[in-house]
């Protein structure tokens, strides 16, 4: 059964989409890598930036093998430039 996930967007990613989150539908649990892939399919204009981005789950960075559960807060973190 597909579950709807809102992926939080920031900076250039948000501007590319024009909204601060992107809804994707996924079978859960899924890997973080599968989430990233679904983002690129749902919004191809994000793909170049998304592949350079990291995913954060519940406000911590994860790698592609991390397991995403229903209710997790997912954020796409483009390359950062604070400082």
């Amino acid at each position, binding site marked *: 059964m597909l579950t709807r996930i809102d992926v*939080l967007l*920031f*900076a*250039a990613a948000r*501007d590319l989409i024009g909204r601060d989150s992107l809804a994707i539908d996924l079978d859960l649990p899924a890997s973080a890598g599968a989430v990233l892939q679904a983002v690129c399919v749902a919004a191809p204009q994000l793909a170049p*930036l998304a592949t*350079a981005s990291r995913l*954060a789950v519940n*406000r*911590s*960075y994860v790698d592609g093998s991390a397991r995403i559960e229903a209710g997790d807060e997912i*954020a796409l*973190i*483009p*390359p*950062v*430039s*604070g*400082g």
Partner: protein
Amino acid sequence: MEASGRSTIRVELVHSPIELAQWRSWVGDPDVGAHLWFEGVTRRTTGDQKTSRLTYEAFEPMALSELQRLGDWAVERFALTRLVIVHRLGTVEIGETSVLVGCSSPHRAAVMMAMPEIMNRLKSEVPIWKRQHDQDGEVRWVHPR
């Protein structure tokens, strides 16, 4: 870390000008011999580009937890007595401070070694982004690859 009842680390995201002087006494301690302060400020010139201002945004709750994690790591790694990291969000005009890092330790070697590492990690780990507004009107996000 907090045996004395005083905390060792402070991290903040602020939306108004950063004043180093406000933090001077917090970083002080009778048993430190060295204070080191870094301020990142908006620079007008980058190569051929003339910047008019920078605007910063953050994924705030995560930026705070990443700053705290960075602070915990640095205090442990370099045996700092105090560490404060303040990052400004919103518009930062030329010459204004976007980030302030202050730390203290008994001897100067610790703060001198800590500071470059703290800034390197802050710039690669903390979810904060700058948008560069050029004098010719161009605006672009800075996303280092």
